[in-house]
């Protein structure tokens, strides 16, 4: 409510963050897992004196650098960019709580990038021993930066004691930080195997391909087997409402949670019966299939993780529309337009009720809803009468647990109601002759099922 609101049409800010975040998660976990995969495989090649395997590691490291250093680093910056645009207040809060954590993460990031370059350019310049150490330094940097970022992400869902006794340490060592870190590490291992399968599938030498494919498949299997165990622990640390949302209270979220399990089972099954059992017949198409399944798993899982945090962005402290819980009663009294900075009028303007209504929507609802696209407002209220909308606004948080309550004066609520009603001009009342029956039918059916 402090900032002007950016409303990307159709997608909405939340979905833009989501898209960038899913791609970034897919690559950045690979950046960590790959950091383990490279030196371990390199060491294996030295121990077994396997020149062909060593050549494979070299070519894999080029792929690694192109994917991780470029896409991984830039998309990570991209998330930071988008959260600043979509949720500036929340970003500012996280930076205030965690700035030294971020600064520490930045040191790890710096070491990680330097090590990646030296590893990649150093194949012919460093002796094997030193080269291997550089690989381990890379992994240390990458995993430690996961550790820090994971703490910050976990904080948003389970801030724990920070709410009563705010400090960096209560924030960082929050209830879900440790299990979530284990899950992420396991995901990294699995994804390192997935990317390994992709590069291994293109090897020409059949004996080598068979060896590496099987080896990479093991990584996928080991990683994916740890995930459910740590995952259960993780789920047990979540706030009760978040657990309910993922287990039935919100159908869409439940479906996605089920999909997440379904996709991971597919990854395991395909990997076991494909590359693990029959490495000889493995090819690039199959590798891409597994990669796509893994990306889908990442996608739906991250989506669920974001969804169960609703209605909050920092659980119990700040709502998704960046209103602080502690400010709610003040805003309820003074009004949202008075509290907000970038609105057209600071009270409902009787001549421009719809402008004021839209302002209220922007400030309180646009963080999760768009007008016409993702989670569309026009679609949500289609066929609703004004009293029906009013009723919903009075009980937003009770009817749907994943929405914050509406706050604001009565005049503001009515302006919002009128704006919402104006989204679907009702032919039945305006032009009685025009297809009145069709307009009434959906109104009746949704009216019956919704409240």
């Amino acid at each position, binding site marked *: 409510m402090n900032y002007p609101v950016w409303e990307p049409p159709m997608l909405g800010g939340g979905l833009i963050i989501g898209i960038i975040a899913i791609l970034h998660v897919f690559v950045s976990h690979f950046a960590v897992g790959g950091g383990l995969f490279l030196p371990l495989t390199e060491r294996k090649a030295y121990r077994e004196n396997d020149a062909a395997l060593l050549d494979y590691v070299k070519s894999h490291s080029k792929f690694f650098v192109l994917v991780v*250093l470029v896409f991984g680093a*830039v998309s990570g910056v991209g998330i930071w*960019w988008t959260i600043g645009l979509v949720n500036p207040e929340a*970003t500012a*809060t996280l*930076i205030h709580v965690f700035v030294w*954590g971020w600064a*520490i993460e930045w*040191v790890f990031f710096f070491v990680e990038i330097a090590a990646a370059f030296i590893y990649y350019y150093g194949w012919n310049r460093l002796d094997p021993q030193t080269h291997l150490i550089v690989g381990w330094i890379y992994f240390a940097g990458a995993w430690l930066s996961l550790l820090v970022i994971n703490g910050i992400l976990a904080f948003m869902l389970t801030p724990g004691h920070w709410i009563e006794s705010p400090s960096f340490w209560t924030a960082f060592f929050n209830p879900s930080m440790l299990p979530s870190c284990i899950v992420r590490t396991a995901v990294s291992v699995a994804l390192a195997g997935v990317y390994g399968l992709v590069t291994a599938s293109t090897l020409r030498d059949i004996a080598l391909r068979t060896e590496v494919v099987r080896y990479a498949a093991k990584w996928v299997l080991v990683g994916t087997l740890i995930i459910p165990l740590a995952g259960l622990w993780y789920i047990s640390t979540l706030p009760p409402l978040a657990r309910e949302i993922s287990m039935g209270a919100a159908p869409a979220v439940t479906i996605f949670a089920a999909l997440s399990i379904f996709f991971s089972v597919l990854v395991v099954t395909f990997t076991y019966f494909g590359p693990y059992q029959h490495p000889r017949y493995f090819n690039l198409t199959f590798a891409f299939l597994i990669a796509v399944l893994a990306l889908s798993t990442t996608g739906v899982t991250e989506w669920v993780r974001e969804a169960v945090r609703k209605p909050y962005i920092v659980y119990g402290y700040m709502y998704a529309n960046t209103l602080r819980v502690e400010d709610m009663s003040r805003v309820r009294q003074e009004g949202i337009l008075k509290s907000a900075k970038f609105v057209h009028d600071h009270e409902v303007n009787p001549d421009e009720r719809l402008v004021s209504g839209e302002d209220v929507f922007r400030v309180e609802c646009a963080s999760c809803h768009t007008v016409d696209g993702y989670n569309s407002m026009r679609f949500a209220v289609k066929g609703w009468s004004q009293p029906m909308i009013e009723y919903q606004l009075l009980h937003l948080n009770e009817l749907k647990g994943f929405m914050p309550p509406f706050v604001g004066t009565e005049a503001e609520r009515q302006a919002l109601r009128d704006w919402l009603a104006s989204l679907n001009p009702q032919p039945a009342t305006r032009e009685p002759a025009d297809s009145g029956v069709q307009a009434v039918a959906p109104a009746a059916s949704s009216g019956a099922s919704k409240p």
Partner: protein
Amino acid sequence: MNPVIPAPVPIPLPAPVWLIQLLMVFTFILHLIPMNLLVGGAVILAVSSYRGRNEARHRELARRAAHAMPPVVAFAITLGVAPLLFLQLLYGQLFYTSSVLMAWSWLAVVALLMLAYYGVYWFALQQEELGPRGFWVIALTALIVIYIMRTFVANLSLMQQPQVFYARFLTGRAGNYLGPAEALVFTRLAHFFLAALAIGGLGLAVLARSWKAEAPELAVWARRYGLRWFQAGTGLQFLVGLWFLFSLPAEMRGAFLGGDRLSTALLIVAVALALLALIAARKSLAVGSVAILGTVSLMAVIRHLVRIAYLRPYFDPRTLPVEGQWTVFVIFAVLLVAGILTVGWMLFHFFRPAARESTR
């Protein structure tokens, strides 16, 4: 109309303002080095790639210098993160507002950065395959990084003019603004662009030293050629910099022309160091580089003073409450030193004379 500025976050700052400012300016200086090498380097490479169609030595220069670019981009990005982090900590309420007002442009930076990064890799790794088409790749990359620079200049200029936020909000949808287009933004951009060319040229001269063993003639010529860029860029800067100074609002210009002792002294020393670099670079690259690094550092400090001056009527971070998180800070400081030592150790092994010649 009163300026509309979001309220700062109601959480105390985790360190005193001077410390955050110090880190912000220091890491900004670190960022400026690869950033200038990137912008200047991309332009110089584009020129050499174009002339390389007829001149073998330009072709050879582009081929060799291209390999230095991927790490330059990587460090321009990595080192850019820290100053932006500290800037958001101190001036978040201004920075986020200006970013949201020009959201599409600002977000485009990420996509463009990705394109430029892959452009640099493409140019470096596939020169043979690309042939003369390589020029288009690197020329487009250069245009992209210049555009990114424009967007940064625009956003950081808008950020220090909170008096225009609300009017901007009222005209058009938030996010569609491309950024302020007043003369000052152009002179500032011209100033930075010239600096980038100069530093890119100097970087080339330094890089050419590592070609001595393999291609002695090229190394000598490339050094001279790089220095020409450096001298031309720095020489012209005496005009453009002056133009920039005179396009600043009168009070600020006054501060640098005797009004404020510290500002004036900094400016004089910075300019004197640039002159020294200009004269000395031909004889000694080391002296020239150190002197110009001094200029860049002082300019970063001056830039910070300009921001403070712009914001004086609206916001002073020293009014914010502070509650130091010293334990974490000490851990950060220790890790920073450890990190630098680790990178130093790796670089030492990488550049050790005993290291076998690269055969990439």
